[in-house]
């Protein structure tokens, strides 16, 4: 039996529907059935996805980035990341950076974009122990100072003395490590 729709391919799908008491039948090939939506059977109110995705926001922001980095006198030259070779134009096109160094290379151009995208420019989350370096130490210091204050107010002087020593050690480390991180 051939497909009733295209009359070319063999019919492999049998569709029988009953809508308000009226029954219809059809013998279709898979392709035609798919085309006619017979393989979906989705009924009820159809639901359309509003395009609210992060991707669409991001690409609309990218479209508004200046064509040339910095001053427009630089047309013809392209700012290029010395580490991975990505140009500013590449980023504008693809929306992806090439390496960690790109963030330094294109900082001036990226900051307004990131501010729009992220609503701010201040990392407030986790700091890695190794690459976080001085910042991690600063975070630890803040925590220790807070605990010292608490210890003093509780008159837990032994604990306070121990915390004070830890703070001093960290402060030394911070001085010694400054610039090296």
């Amino acid at each position, binding site marked *: 039996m051939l497909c009733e729709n295209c009359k070319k391919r063999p019919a492999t799908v049998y569709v029988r529907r009953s809508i308000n008491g009226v029954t219809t039948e059809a013998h279709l090939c898979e392709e035609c059935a798919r085309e006619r939506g017979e393989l979906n059977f989705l009924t009820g109110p159809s639901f359309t996805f509003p395009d609210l995705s992060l991707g669409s926001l991001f690409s609309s922001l990218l479209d508004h980035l200046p064509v040339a980095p910095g001053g427009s006198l630089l047309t013809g030259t392209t700012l290029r990341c010395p580490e991975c070779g990505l140009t500013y134009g590449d980023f504008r096109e693809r929306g992806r*950076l090439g390496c960690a160094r790109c963030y330094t290379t294109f900082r001036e151009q990226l900051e307004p974009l990131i501010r729009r995208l992220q609503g701010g420019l201040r990392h407030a989350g986790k700091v890695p122990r190794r690459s976080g370096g001085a910042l991690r130490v600063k975070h630890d210091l803040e925590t220790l100072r807070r605990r010292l204050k608490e210890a003093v107010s509780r008159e837990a002087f032994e604990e306070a003395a121990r915390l004070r020593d830890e703070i001093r050690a960290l402060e030394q480390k911070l001085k010694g490590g400054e610039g090296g991180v």
Partner: protein
Amino acid sequence: MFDAEAVFTQVRSAWLGPGPNSDIVVSSRIRLARNLVDLPFPSAAGKDALAEVLSRVRRASEHLPEARRYQFLELGRLSPLDRQVLIEKHLISPEHAREPEGRGVVLRDDETVSIMVNEEDHIRLQVLLPGLDLNAAWQLANRLDDSLEQQLDFAFDEKLGFLTACPTNLGSGLRASIMLHLPALVLLNQAGQVFTTLSQLGVVVRGLYGEGTQALGNFFQISNQLTLSQSEEDLISNLLALVGQVLEQERAARSRLYQEFGNRLVDMVWRAYGTLTSARILSGNEAMKLLSDVRLGVTLNLLPHVDLGTLNRLLVLTRPGFIQRVAGQQLPPAERDVRRAAIVREELLGKNK
């Protein structure tokens, strides 16, 4: 003993089990994006750089807590069907499998943890738990991240936080997602409005398999939009507050459906159950739609003999990749539809007789 084959042929993922609020929430996921400081991001990396990332992350993963529970898979060495199964189980993303060469994934035996290597970023660490359990997922992800960080130097900036290939992931690199089943909001045509409101509050709504995918079976993923300028804990608690409101609205919609359309609802649910337990041919989309109806019925106690865990398992068991992988070969759609119908009958009837 680690059964390396099990992930492709069995559905034992912990995230398909019971969890808090599992009448609406299927699973909670935390994803952290990290990059190595001295190598180009995957999209700009050549073959050698990709291989270097793979081998460094692989070595680092050998120091994870309970390291014996993990296996490392190179996507380039898997068959297309294997990769499709990993996507269907949400262990890798469709983007990750697009160019499999030089890509890899580290998996824990219960499929709670997957570490995608060389997806958009060098590392995408994911923790997936059943039900609404974001805080526990974050705690585990945080511990695993600490462990990796002892072995690897991550790209980090004081102001911008963890550096990612796309600026939309900067800072915490954290994307928290909740997979929700919202059939009543869809049936009452309220879902669109709820999602529009959510998007104004910094939340992204997507389909079952991420960006750009359809809302199959009324399942949706809700996740945070911003990643910078807030701590991980704040990002998570903001999302949880909004999700709490969505749960309330879905529950209200379910009881309204029941009160106003009682007979029609009961009929819809039992028809769906009847079709699932009788049909000899089931397309993937039809199965999803009917499973959604049955799931709604189970949570309203209209089908008390059906178990939510079985329905969750069927979410994976009825996907085309999994059906073909279990069959051991590629199958034309018509044949998959026949097998799918048999699998559904066996799961629903075989267990509840």
